[in-house]
């Protein structure tokens, strides 16, 4: 009885699988890809460019319209020895990296 049932089911399975022919792509994949939303990588590049341009413009405006305090700070900065400037820049980079790292870490934790 059990064998009989298995045989029947196998027969049906075989017929069902035969009834599932391969459907030719016929441009389906191309249509799907065409409708996919644009890559985020491109938008990241654009965002990076906008940030860089904004920083540049802000620096130029600050320099052009700066008061005596900012100008004297700039003159002081240029007058500093190279090693001091490098240490100052390095400290700034480390500070920015630490802030960025902690923000990224908190984002990963909240994402879990």
């Amino acid at each position: 009885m059990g064998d009989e049932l298995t045989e029947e089911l196998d027969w049906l399975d075989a017929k069902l699988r035969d009834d599932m022919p391969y459907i030719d792509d016929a441009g389906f994949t191309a249509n799907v890809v065409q409708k996919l939303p644009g890559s985020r990588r491109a938008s990241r590049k654009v965002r990076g460019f906008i940030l860089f341009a904004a920083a540049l413009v802000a620096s130029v405006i600050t320099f052009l319209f700066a008061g005596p305090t900012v100008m004297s700070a700039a003159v002081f900065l240029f007058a500093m020895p190279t090693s001091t400037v490098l240490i100052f820049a390095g400290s700034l980079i480390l500070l920015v990296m630490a802030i960025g790292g902690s923000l990224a870490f908190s984002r990963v934790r909240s994402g879990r």
Partner: protein
Amino acid sequence: MSLTDADLVARTLLDEDQNAFSELVRRHQSAVRGLLRQLTRCDLALADDLAQEAFIKAYKNIRSFRGEAKFSTWLYRIAYNCFREDARRRKELVGIDETQLEAERDPQTVDPALRHDLAQALQLLPLHERTAVVLCCQNGLSHDEASRVLDIPLGTVKTNVLRGREKLKKALAAWETN
């Protein structure tokens, strides 16, 4: 060496590589479209629209694929949900009318070709049995995978497959003896 589905998903995720995703579409389009054709009772245009929608949703939500199940199982689930949403929109997510079922069972309407008969018999099954049979018997999913796709208990899937098969067997009884 060809890449596995998992490799292609990883590439899509890390590099936002649309080529990798298009390879996934190419691999699975036949099965997904076939499933949707059965669910929509061979409405080819609707099935293809839903399949397209399913693949686009899969791309947008690919970060939610955690690799716990096979990519195809995850994809079938999205496709099935697309079908259900569409059916809900059309208010068609109901069982087949029994009188229609009886009318279509009239032996005089039976086509001599087995494939035609089988397709016809499948279309006569209620949606839940048809979906279970198509997923498990045609697409080769295990009962467990089908229960994940359909989001119903494993026992219900087994019952639906069994009942669907029984009905198919009855509908195709004449062919079985040949």
